């Protein structure tokens, strides 16, 4: 009986350790999965085409608490060539959603700027949804020296 017990204890211990390791390993992947899910929910399942969307942000952000980010989409903003909305996603944040800008035919140009928090070095993705339902995306990697998500 005693040996069985010991074996059990060992197995449980090993199992827990393995779980812990797996948990740590998949964490970043999980966050990126969340980003993909967000983008899918935004585009309605379609994979956005590359192009037309430009993100301007610093190459290196010293302070992840306020990273200035501008996004612009090539569009005439008249007739059918209208950008309805643009979603900003920070892949490596605990919650990847950042902001969604909703434009109108009175916007003149499809562009907006804001300041965002970034937890670590990561890719920022912007997805634009056009009036005709097509979607475009652009991405930019920003190096973050000090993360800005509290904690």
């Amino acid at each position, binding site marked *: 009986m005693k040996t069985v017990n010991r074996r059990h204890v060992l197995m449980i211990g090993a199992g827990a350790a393995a779980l812990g390791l797996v948990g740590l390993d998949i964490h970043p992947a999980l966050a990126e999965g969340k980003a993909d899910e967000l983008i899918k929910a935004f585009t309605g399942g379609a994979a956005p085409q590359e192009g037309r969307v430009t993100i301007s942000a610093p190459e290196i952000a010293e302070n992840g*608490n306020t990273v200035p980010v501008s996004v612009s989409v090539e569009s005439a903003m008249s007739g059918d060539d209208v950008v309805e909305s643009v979603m900003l996603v920070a892949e490596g944040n605990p919650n990847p959603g950042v*902001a969604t800008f909703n434009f*109108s035919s009175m*916007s*003149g140009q499809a562009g907006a700027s804001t300041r965002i*928090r970034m937890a670590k070095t990561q890719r920022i993705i912007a997805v634009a949804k056009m009036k005709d339902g097509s979607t475009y995306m652009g991405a930019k990697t920003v190096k973050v020296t000090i993360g800005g998500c*509290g904690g």
Partner: protein
Amino acid sequence: MADPKPRVKVPKTASKGDVITIKTLISHKMETGLRKGKDGKPIPRKIINTFTCEFNGQQVFSTNLEPAVSANPYLEFSVKVEESGTFKFTWIEDDGATYSKEQEITVN
């Protein structure tokens, strides 16, 4: 913290058909809900989650904000103006409180 104070920068005049740039800022902590206080308990999330801009009663721009937007959320966007009128900017907080500011523009 003191009450959130909205600030906006809109040109006073513009020519018809001009695309003007509007800059807005509101003083707000944008508490993410991820931070922990001194007692080790998480500080509840409290952010500005929606911003809208109306021109003469018609919505021209809006934004949904997540906790990843920095404290004192700053927004810059553009509007094409065809006539004189009033911009109304509204910020909505998680608990439903709203802050707004109006600004006139003369278009000639």
